[in-house]
């Protein structure tokens, strides 16, 4: 009997040692919605993970789960990371919002960071990037580069994030050419190279000589390259796939944020925050401006600098909606609340927003 007891005690000890042995080391967990090889959204988040490893070396251990479906599996995957001893967990897709909040309730000592959502808690921060700032810049470039005055926009889903991007793009373009036209195709997917390629071909066939996308594959740019028009990269630098067609790319730069938040946990200064950063802190980065005349590149750089300094705001009035009603007057700016829930087009978009 005693032997058995001793055995149990030593086993229990063994188990507890194995969990506290690496007490100094912070485990940082990541939940990805796609494969890390998508060369887009998840790929960029994974670059953030690598940057955290690079920065802190032995002080952190990173773990991740890829291809986590948004649904009942998400809660389990997040719980698993927390149970494995992760002290900081990044959940990198909108669909992980409710599961993150639910798991956070059960693990009050673990810090959570949820991307692109809006539900916060004492141990849940939210973060997102103001990609629309980049879209404003590429809108200006598009209007300068286009001979036809028509751009084709391959859109994924009519959520505020995407609608905001379309509006910012057109507002940017209209500063150069007030009659600039925008054709939109909703492909109803984030990622289907074939579909995206088809949409690009159709848009070019309909007279667009600029292709831009809010989907994740490199296919539209490849089509642009093949058909001799130009376009913009999405999420990561896609220059290699379209050396003559990519004018610039809007890059999601999560690495600095991930490093900073990891440092905060290590230093014990982590607090629940709401971060929505743009070009200024470097969460949105423009890749090299290329395949365009120097004066266009100079203009783009200037706009970029003005946005960074806060001199220029893409959603500054006057802004009119599609019905011609003024949404916001001269000199005023749309507030973040309106931007976050945006579900209307600005004047000039040649499309009806799917309901």
């Amino acid at each position: 009997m005693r032997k058995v007891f001793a055995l149990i005690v030593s086993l229990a000890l063994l188990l507890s040692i194995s969990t506290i042995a690496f007490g100094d080391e912070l485990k940082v967990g990541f939940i990805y919605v796609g494969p890390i090889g998508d060369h887009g959204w998840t790929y960029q988040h994974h670059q953030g993970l690598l940057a955290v490893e690079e920065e802190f070396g032995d002080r952190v251990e990173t773990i991740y789960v890829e291809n986590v479906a948004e649904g009942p599996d998400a809660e389990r995957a997040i719980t698993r990371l927390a149970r494995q001893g992760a002290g900081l967990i990044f959940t990198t897709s909108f669909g992980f919002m409710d599961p993150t909040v639910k798991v956070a309730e059960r693990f009050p000592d673990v810090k959570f960071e949820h991307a692109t959502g809006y539900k916060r808690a004492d141990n849940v921060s939210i973060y997102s990037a103001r990609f629309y700032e980049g879209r404003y810049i590429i809108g200006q470039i598009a209007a300068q580069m286009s001979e036809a005055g028509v751009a084709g926009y391959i859109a994924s889903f009519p959520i505020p994030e995407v609608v905001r991007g379309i509006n910012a793009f057109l507002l940017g373009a209209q500063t150069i050419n007030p009659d600039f036209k925008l054709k939109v195709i909703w492909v109803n997917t984030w990622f289907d190279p074939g579909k995206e390629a088809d949409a690009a071909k159709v848009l070019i066939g309909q007279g667009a000589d600029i292709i831009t996308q809010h989907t994740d594959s490199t296919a539209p740019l490849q089509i642009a390259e093949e058909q001799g028009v130009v376009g913009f990269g999405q999420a990561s630098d896609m220059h290699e796939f379209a050396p003559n067609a990519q004018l610039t790319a809007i890059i999601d730069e999560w690495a600095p944020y991930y490093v900073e938040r990891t440092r905060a946990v290590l230093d014990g200064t982590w607090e629940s925050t709401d971060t929505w950063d743009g070009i200024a802190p470097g969460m949105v980065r423009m890749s090299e401006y290329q395949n365009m005349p120097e004066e266009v590149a100079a203009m783009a750089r200037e706009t970029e600098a003005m946005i960074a300094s806060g001199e220029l705001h893409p959603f500054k009035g006057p802004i009119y909606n599609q019905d011609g009603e003024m949404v916001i007057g001269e000199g005023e700016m749309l507030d973040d609340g309106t931007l976050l829930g945006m579900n209307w087009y600005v004047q000039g978009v040649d499309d009806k927003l799917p309901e």
Partner: protein
Amino acid sequence: MTGLEAVLLTIITAATPLLLAAIGELVTERSGVLNLGVEGMMIIGAVSGFGAAYTFGSAAAGVAAAIVMGVGVALLFAYFTQTLITNQVATGLALTLFGLGLSGLIGENFTGLPLPDPAKLQRLHIPLLTDIPFIGPVVFGQDALVYASVAITVLVAWTLARTRVGLVIRATGGNHHSAHALGYRVIAVRYACIAFGGACAGLAGGYLSLVYTPQWIENMTAGRGWIALALVVFSTWAPRRVAVGAYLFGTVWIMGLYAQGAGIGIPPQLLSSLPYLATIAALVLISGNRLLTKKNTPACLGLPFVPDR
């Protein structure tokens, strides 16, 4: 380039992989075997096609690898369903699952790489002919696989209808017991037809990773294998109608995009569901015509064959 020409070219690209995969599956089904693993064979073709083209810097190597690997996994299916006499529906699903996973493993090193120019499949260019406005680029300006897809379709139609080989295939699918009694080697015929289906599916996958969007991306077939399966039924197992169906499918899809680009507001979900609804509708319409279905339907489809000794 005129608008209509662009639309036609886009439809051809969209229809070609569907046609390739469907015509292969048609032959498999006409021999009495239902292979639901088209998606799996396609994705294996896509990854090996890209891998070979990238590694050897040659499009021909890519095409060859896509075919060989397509046949390879198809033979796996054949071994299970024909030699081990497993259930065809379940084996096909296993093949799809297996193919999607395996392609991901093989492709880990090829993700995010652009295909170098010599490894891309070039479009045909015949001086003068290709330069004819409109007809030129559509008829004389395609890549080799587009012509191959049409040639294979014609060849399959002719073989099935006019040759002894076709007769044997049809007999095998129609009534394997009588085919066996007549001295045909049912299992061997089915092995061959499954392999042919695999070659075509592999080629269809290769078309995606070499021509359609020249790169390797996980899950890049995105359900096209299932559509190919639907096309075979849609066609009531007639090669001619498979071609019509593939092009019709491509047209419906591209016109949906076209309408959107033209600013006609339709819920994209409705557009996306059109092809599926159209297939169901077509199935009903065609099935209503008993003559049409009776003629080509392989009566032994999906049934296992065990020779009486």
